């Protein structure tokens, strides 16, 4: 599903975010990427949805060589994956339904196909009854579920989540983890960066630990830290 080959990423300001990383994620996997702030977790995800291009090495998503993707083909890549952020990135002036529908509308989905698909996505994240609220009237956890609904409404085969529980209280974090697990059970590959030790230790999924831009641990059914 995802493959990185000896990937190095340094930014123009001299910061080296990733140093020679190689990683392979199979379809249907659920992977936690853990490590302290500034170790390149977000950069890793950005390489996958082509917000950044590696300085060296190659990145594959599905059968696409993301490193060699021409600018015009980025839209195609983005339609094949979903991205969720710590700060939700919802449009404040639009309802929950419109926020999710927006993702379909701007890629040219016919209007009659939009409603049932948005409905299904909202059902999956458990927010069907909130469809006509605006994000400002929802809790943080609910807003994050809206953003997940938007990320999966297009049925992507890969879901990238960058610190999705970073702004949330423990209860809301569990709601999010339940939703992500459900998405994963439907066959979608999920890669999630996190600081949330509890979540990682309880769910016992594959853990990739980064330190100083390198992979220092890659463990099936891992814990947040070895010495925990």
């Amino acid at each position, binding site marked *: 599903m995802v493959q990185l080959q000896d990937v190095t990423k340094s930014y123009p300001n001299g910061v080296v975010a990733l140093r020679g990383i190689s990683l392979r994620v199979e379809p249907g996997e659920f992977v936690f990427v853990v490590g302290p702030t500034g170790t390149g977790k977000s950069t890793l995800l950005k390489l996958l*949805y082509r*917000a950044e291009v590696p300085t060296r090495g190659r990145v594959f998503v599905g059968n696409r060589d993301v490193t060699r993707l021409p*600018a*015009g083909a*980025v*839209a*195609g*890549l*983005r*339609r*094949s994956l*979903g*991205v969720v952020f710590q700060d939700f*990135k919802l*449009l404040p002036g639009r309802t929950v339904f419109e926020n999710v529908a*927006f*993702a379909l509308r*701007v*890629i*040219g*989905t*016919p*209007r*009659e196909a939009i409603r049932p698909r948005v409905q299904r996505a909202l059902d999956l994240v458990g927010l069907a009854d909130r469809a006509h609220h605006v994000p400002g009237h929802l809790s943080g956890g609910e807003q994050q579920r809206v953003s997940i609904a*938007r990320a999966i409404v*297009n049925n992507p085969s890969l879901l990238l989540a960058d610190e999705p529980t970073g702004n949330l209280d423990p209860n809301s974090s569990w709601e999010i983890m339940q939703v992500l697990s459900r998405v994963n059970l439907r066959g979608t590959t999920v890669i999630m960066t996190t600081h949330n030790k509890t979540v990682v230790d309880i769910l016992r999924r594959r853990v990739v630990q980064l330190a100083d831009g390198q992979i220092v641990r890659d463990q099936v059914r891992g814990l947040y830290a070895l010495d925990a």
Partner: protein
Amino acid sequence: MRLTRSRRHPIGFLRGVVEDATSFAADAAAGFRRNGLMTAAAVTTVMVALLVVGAAVLLGLNLARVASAVEAQVEVVAFLQEGLDGEGRARVTSALAGLPGVASVHFVTRDEALRRLQDQLGSGGGFDDLVKTNPLPDSVELQLTDPVLAPTVAQAVSRQPGVSEVTYGGQVVDRVVALSRSVRLVAGLLIAFLAGVALIVVVNTIRLTVIARRQEIEIMHLVGATRWFIRWPFLIEGLLQGAAAAGGAVIVLLLVYALGVARLGASLPFLPLVGMREVLEPVAAAVLLGGAGVGVLGSMIAIRRFLAT
């Protein structure tokens, strides 16, 4: 793989296009409303630049008309040596008529030449002396097959026996051509400068809209909207601004020109001015094209940076 709208069903595609077009137009109109003052400033600036464009076109058209009017009147005049008898004059005249490039010749006696001069200068008196001692020579006027040939023919004429001096209207044509060239140069520089200013103002106006909608743009990028899909509303907003400016400029230009033609035509009837009807199309075309170009280019530049990610 996901099917695109067009491959799925054509009617859905058509309806989608109509929906998109209406939503684009609504977005563009919203931009117009949101940044009213900036938009007014942009439209005014572009309009001023377009006024210069239109004025240059009008001036150019009229100078071309003057040049061709002068050209049509170009004739070579050969002044004959004094003291030729009737036979000599006839010989020279027929020799001149046989030169290549000469369409017809007209012999003008010195008396006739004096009469013409009197007509042109009016009867202010003082001509009585001249009539007695007419200083003008006999001359032959040559109509040419093509005004471009004037210098060549003039040279050939000067070599003919019996001819003392040659003049032709070429100097006037040269001057008109030189004038329209410098008008074109000055107008070009002025237009380039004003176009730059107009572009900067348009870019800044559209950028306000882009910034107001940058969250939407970011999300559009994220979920895989194509760059053209994102660009369209802004291009239309720029186009509308350019078109509004162009419309204003065309109206002002034509009003001023109509007034000017009426005034000048009355006081200088011999000036060959280009009529309103002939002027409308080239001026409107140049101004509308210029307005649309500045608008579209401006919005392309304004959104370029936001399309990068």
